[in-house]
């Protein structure tokens, strides 16, 4: 029998705010244990939570970016359970009225080849709600210590419908959410820092069956590759169980990314009764149209939208676009360089091939790179004008990356500029090129404009590269369009 997997993901995203969600103390990662605490975070007797509006702003913005409906009221509930990392032994969360309802996440599956766009799908969301993060337990021999620095960090939980069917889809889903959240400035989504965490609900059913099978919750998928591997493992495990005549038990399993194996954590019977009820310490907050409109205006274009626009407006290849759009800063950088240079494809190539290589090699970042879009644009123009040959331009690039000087300055200083070809000489080469390519000539005359490219290589070769492509183009057109 053929089986189909049904996968739903619960993704926790830490929201990047200056302070915690219900306390005035700062939020952050990597501080000395228990330094980001105050009486409220530690749940000392008598303390009360007060909502940080920035956290609510962020989740509403996230919801708007993902096309969710925003609830008119932000209501808070208590989720009651005992655990040493939870200072109050209840978590302030949202139960029956999540702040965001519905929405979808656009994903792209791997294409047939690296340079071809894959299939796009839209994974529907059930809800997004806001809650507070808990602290962190550190286990030592005979002792466990709690660090409450993380406790009270704003956290949103993005719950998908059970609408994915492969580990690849889940992987693509998580990748897309991650990019979207980074785009919106909502989170840095660093999985190593726990800023993005994922649990998966997985079931299988015979292909063609519409009823859902018994689901297993897989926890601790703490890296994007663990998500893919863990889900693939779980699907295999369930198929093997059914094929050997066994059954799937509803349970929660813990995935160990190191061993690639999952283990049962608790069964359905051991499930918690969280005794949710409205938190009497927090008043519901009204979210009106003006509030939503303000945040809507802050929503950036999403990565896939941008990719479609880049490919259409700038005529850049899919591979270049898919490098550019997943990093918002990089895509902004590209757009500026594209506009300044007037040559988006050339600018895109310099950025994706040379700039990223140099940044990677020097362990720098785009932010601190001395090469700004204006440098790229000037470089593109020098090459396009025939003043810099490809090899020379590469040398200029490396120097410019190191010094931040403009490319023209470097080329002059290092005498790298090519002497421009003599106009008469150029025209002669063009005539020779036309004479040598009758096929291209007849194609061009019958209206195939691109046939002109057939002459250009000849001319450039004759000029030993020391001619401006622009000038070659102009000269060729002048000759081709002249009555013969």
């Amino acid at each position: 029998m053929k089986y189909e997997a049904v996968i739903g993901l619960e993704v926790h995203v830490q929201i990047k705010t200056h302070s915690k969600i219900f306390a005035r103390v700062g939020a952050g990662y990597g501080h000395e244990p228990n330094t980001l605490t105050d009486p409220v975070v530690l749940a000392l007797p008598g303390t009360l939570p007060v909502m940080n509006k920035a956290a609510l702003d962020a989740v509403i913005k996230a919801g708007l970016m993902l096309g969710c409906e925003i609830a008119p009221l932000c209501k808070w509930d208590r989720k009651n359970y005992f655990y040493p990392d939870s200072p109050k032994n209840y978590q302030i969360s949202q139960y029956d009225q999540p702040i965001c309802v519905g929405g979808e996440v656009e994903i792209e599956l791997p294409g047939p080849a690296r340079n071809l766009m894959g299939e796009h799908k839209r994974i529907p969301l059930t809800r997004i709600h806001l809650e507070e993060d808990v602290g962190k337990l550190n286990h030592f021999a005979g002792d466990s210590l709690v660090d409450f620095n993380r406790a009270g960090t704003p956290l949103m939980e993005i719950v998908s419908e059970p609408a994915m069917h492969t580990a690849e889809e889940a992987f693509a889903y998580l990748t897309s959410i991650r990019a979207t959240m980074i785009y919106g400035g909502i989170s840095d989504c660093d999985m190593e820092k726990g800023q993005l965490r994922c649990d998966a609900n997985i079931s299988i059913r015979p292909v063609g069956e519409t009823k859902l099978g018994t689901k297993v919750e897989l926890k601790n998928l703490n890296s994007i590759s663990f998500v893919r591997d863990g889900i693939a493992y779980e699907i295999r495990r369930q198929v093997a169980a059914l094929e050997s005549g066994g059954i799937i038990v509803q349970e929660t399993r813990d995935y160990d990314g190191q061993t690639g194996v999952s283990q049962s954590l608790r069964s359905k019977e051991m499930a918690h009764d969280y005794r949710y009820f409205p938190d009497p310490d927090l008043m519901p907050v009204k979210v009106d149209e003006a509030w939503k409109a303000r945040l809507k205006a802050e929503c950036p274009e999403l990565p896939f939208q941008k990719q479609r626009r880049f490919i259409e407006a700038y005529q850049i290849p899919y591979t270049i676009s898919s490098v550019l759009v997943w990093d918002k800063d990089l895509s902004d950088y590209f757009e500026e360089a594209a506009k300044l240079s007037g040559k988006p494809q050339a600018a895109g190539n310099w950025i994706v091939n040379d700039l990223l290589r140099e940044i990677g090699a020097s362990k720098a970042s785009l932010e601190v790179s001395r090469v700004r879009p204006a440098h790229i644009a000037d470089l593109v123009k020098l090459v396009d004008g025939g003043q810099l040959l490809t090899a020379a331009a590469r040398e200029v690039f490396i120097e410019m990356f190191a010094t931040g000087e403009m490319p023209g300055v470097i080329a002059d200083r290092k005498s790298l500029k090519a002497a421009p070809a003599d106009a008469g000489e150029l025209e002669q080469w063009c005539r020779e090129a036309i004479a040598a390519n009758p096929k291209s000539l007849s194609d061009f005359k019958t209206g195939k404009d691109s046939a002109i490219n057939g002459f250009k290589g000849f001319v450039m070769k004759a000029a030993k590269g020391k001619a401006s492509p622009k000038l070659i183009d102009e000269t060729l057109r002048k000759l081709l369009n002249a009555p013969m």
Partner: protein
Amino acid sequence: MSTELFFKPVTELAGLLEAKTVSAVELTKAVIARTKAVDARVKAFNSYDEADALAQAEASDTRRAAGQARGLLDGIPVGFKDVISVAGQPLTASSRMLANFVSPYDATVTRKLKDAGAISWGRLNLDEFAMGSSTENSAFQATCNPWDLSRVPGGSSGGSAAALAAGEAIATLGSDTGGSIRQPAALCGVVGLKPTYGLVSRYGLIAFASSLDQIGPFARTVDDAALLLEAIAGHDPLDSTSVNRPVPRYSEEMHRIRREKKVFRLGIPKEYFGEGLDPEVGAAVEKAIGFYKSQGCEIREVSLPHTEYGVGVYYIIATAECSSNLARYDGIRYGHRSKEAKDVVDLYFKSRAEGFGAEVKRRIILGTYVLSSGYYDAFYLRAQKVRTLIRQDFLNAYKDVDAILTPTSPTPAFRAGDKSDPLAMYLCDVYTIGVNLAGLPGISVPCGFSSGGLPIGLQLIGQPFKEAELLAIADLYEGGHDWQRRHPKL
């Protein structure tokens, strides 16, 4: 015969301090001496810090000498129920769980009173975590009624009421979740005010039932209660449930209302005068009604038809909230930690079993039950609906009346140990619970004594945020009587 300093009201002491007839240090020393003389019998204090109080008094005198006195409360020793946080002082909730806990921060009311120059004086006993009506549920000691030491002072703020009645403080703060200020005020013969929910910040008050808890003052006179209220009321950015609206100067506003000689319309809810009401209490309240009539007030019968559900609704909502509020006492970060525990689950079980008393456990279990999956709708959700009806009852009544008049407690102070049945104890709050469920202000003022010499309290219930009018109505009664000038012989 001149009254001892420790029995004088704030308004009078403020004059003496202002005139420098008495210094804050002298006043504080008098209060300390009185406490030392009587508290072994009254047992109102869990602890007090004499040196700290005297240092505060000296600072007050220094301010005054420099012409920088902060107002009428500057130099007045005010006692704190041991659920209200004072930085550097114990905060025990009269529970073994917090027996050794010292709070590192000030509650908002504490900060406000300190800003007004008041001296924070002592930690006052209560029923553990404010759960009870007799102050017998304290893990440390049972407080006694100063009028009859064999009787209870009421609760849960029994220490606050008894200390004031016994002259061990000039005013005190308590908290009221179902009557915990008004009932002990009535049983100890002092004024006790429970403000509108949201008027006074709860930040720094150990939560029992968050949607019902309010901090309020105990005072010798209505005037004093007004002074304390205006010092502690007002919006607090640290408490989301505190209401952002301007706070009047209650002490001036209530006198302005009195001067207007408005004809107050007072409602008498027939449901509050039925079975279970002690005849002497009933008679005293009837006399109070007669007094208001004689002052030209309109007396109207009103109906609060859902009154009978009050106690039931209260014990669902309050226990549900407390089961969650008290979850933080787990022995992990602070508080009692069992030395016997084998693992973390065992640590929870043992620490909480050892740290909490029987009544607290009973309520946590009840609250856990009513919130459980499958029971939530039948209990908690339904109780919330009835709560809305109870509030609506009051708001309907206020279409015809300015305030509602009832007994505060069905009986005067009962004997210690008399109400060992929890249900009998719960019924002590039958007249006070509705006010909390509806979020209204209520005040208890002394309105006579039983034949056995025990104080009786009159409860006046006001409209939301109309404390000034409520105080004016209470002040009208107090002005025609001298109950507040009687003091227990200790």
